[in-house]
């Protein structure tokens, strides 16, 4: 079963279609990375899934139930969320903030201390949230989202504004949720490296359109391997290699060759050496995930 399914989900603001016929599919029990540049429509999509923003068109199913006005709150009882910045009452303590969410959601009181321990805020629970650091506020936001131990957790840019240690800590927390509590986690980000370290499913959105949706492994498969060769005379080297029917092209100060086995690579080196060409560098190159991401989001957009 899928935890979230959307069909033709769209949102129009003024004349602009900010989310354009999105068909999201979030399998149960996974960490789904929802990627896209700033302003791509990630938050709007997540808000539509939570019923905070009304879709212009399309349908949403959450945990197997259609998300409609009438049953929205019933469905959301099994969903935790942290959208954009954390929600909190600065004049109240961390514990008091969670007590509000606990009362609203009607969950047992013991959950408060349990989630405070999970997000490691148990020794700061009596401090007013206004005096928390941003990282602590984010963790409190996560604690509020976890309070009912929901089946589905939606986290919108949970590492925004955190320092590297905070990001690492948040990432570790998120990664252990599916195995420890059997949750499905949807986490949005504009940073591919972040999603790369957390998610097993990826959806990439660009200008409101879903440009990629599959497993992270499939995304990695898109990276193309090749060899980069730098010699004392690339023009002569290219001519020699072409004669030997080795495809190559010039890119910057290098020649790009297709991936070669060790023997073929040794042959190429020997050929160039015999023709008195100096070999400065031969390295394996692979399209990084960033390159793929840019291709899917930035470059394609500029076409």
């Amino acid at each position, binding site marked *: 079963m899928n935890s979230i399914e959307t069909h033709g989900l769209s949102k129009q603001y003024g004349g602009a279609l900010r989310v354009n016929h999105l068909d999201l599919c979030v399998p149960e029990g996974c960490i789904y990375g929802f990627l896209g540049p700033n302003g791509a429509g990630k938050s709007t999509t997540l808000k539509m899934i939570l019923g*905070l*923003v009304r879709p212009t068109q399309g349908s949403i199913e959450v945990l197997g139930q259609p998300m409609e006005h009438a049953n929205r*709150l019933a469905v959301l009882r099994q969903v935790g*969320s942290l959208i954009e910045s954390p*929600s*909190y009452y600065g004049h109240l303590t961390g514990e008091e903030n969670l007590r509000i*969410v606990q009362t609203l*959601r009607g969950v047992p009181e013991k959950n408060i201390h349990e989630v405070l321990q999970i997000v490691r805020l148990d020794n700061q629970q009596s401090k007013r949230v206004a005096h928390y650091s941003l990282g602590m506020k984010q963790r409190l936001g996560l604690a*509020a989202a976890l309070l009912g131990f929901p089946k589905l957790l939606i986290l919108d840019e949970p590492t925004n504004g955190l320092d590297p240690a905070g990001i690492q800590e948040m990432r570790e927390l998120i990664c252990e949720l599916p195995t420890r509590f059997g949750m499905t986690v949807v986490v949005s980000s504009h940073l591919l490296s972040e999603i790369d370290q957390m998610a097993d499913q990826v959806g990439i959105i660009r200008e409101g359109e879903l440009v990629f949706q599959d497993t992270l492994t499939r995304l990695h498969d898109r990276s193309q391997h090749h060899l980069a060769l730098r010699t004392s005379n690339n023009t002569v080297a290219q001519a020699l290699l072409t004669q030997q029917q080795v495809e190559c092209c010039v890119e910057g100060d290098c020649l790009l060759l297709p991936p070669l086995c060790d023997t073929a690579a040794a042959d190429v080196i020997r050929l160039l050496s015999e023709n008195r060409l100096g070999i400065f560098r031969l390295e394996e190159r692979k399209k990084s995930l960033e390159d793929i991401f840019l291709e899917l989001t930035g470059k394609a957009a500029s076409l």
Partner: protein
Amino acid sequence: MKLLRLEFYKCRRRKVALVCAAVLAAQLFWFWVVLSRQSEEEMRQGWLLMLYNFAVLDAIVLPLTTAVLASRSCEIEHKGCTLKLLETAATPAQLYRAKLFWGALTLAGLLLLRGILLVGIGKTLGFPGAVPLEQLIWFSVFSWAVSLMLYLLQQGLSLRYANQAVALVCGIFGSFTGLMSLLMPTQLQRFVPWSYYGLLSLVGMDWDEATHVTSFYWLDPPITDFTLLALWALLFFVIGRTLFVRKEV
């Protein structure tokens, strides 16, 4: 009920009690100044003098009080971006209603306490005659009803605009207009929401130019103006609630 309880919980440390105490202190101080200037003749009409002056004081003080109370309750939601969390567990209409009931109960508490204080003051100062309990109750109910109508306006503004200066400026304008409206003709007063403290006053006043003596007299509860007040309240309720419910967070 759960949401209403939470409203009181959320307003912990928001110094709401202090706001109410300041309002009462300001009104009582003002009345003390008024009393100190009264002649012995005028003091014989103590109860009437009291209710007349407190109606005027309400017109000046309560519009700003409602603005401050609504702002204390609504500002916390903007400051902490909490609506996107709350609206995953309750509908916007339920949240609006809970805030409204919180305001209504807080104002009721404030005016009930004020009513008790008025009785205490009258008895302590030895105002002649029996305590006009019926008029005191009506007076408190009318003050509450007008304040609630203004609270609806203020809550609408405080929820609509994150910058609470908008709502507070409206409150200050209301206090000023409330005072000015006492000098307006009745027909015009009815078109000014802040003037209903004066319109619903239970005490009238005559000032004799020749003798310079002020005499006060009881007025019947003005049903027409009370009905108009209800219409104003309905208008502010419908507009404020609709704007809040339709707003996407």
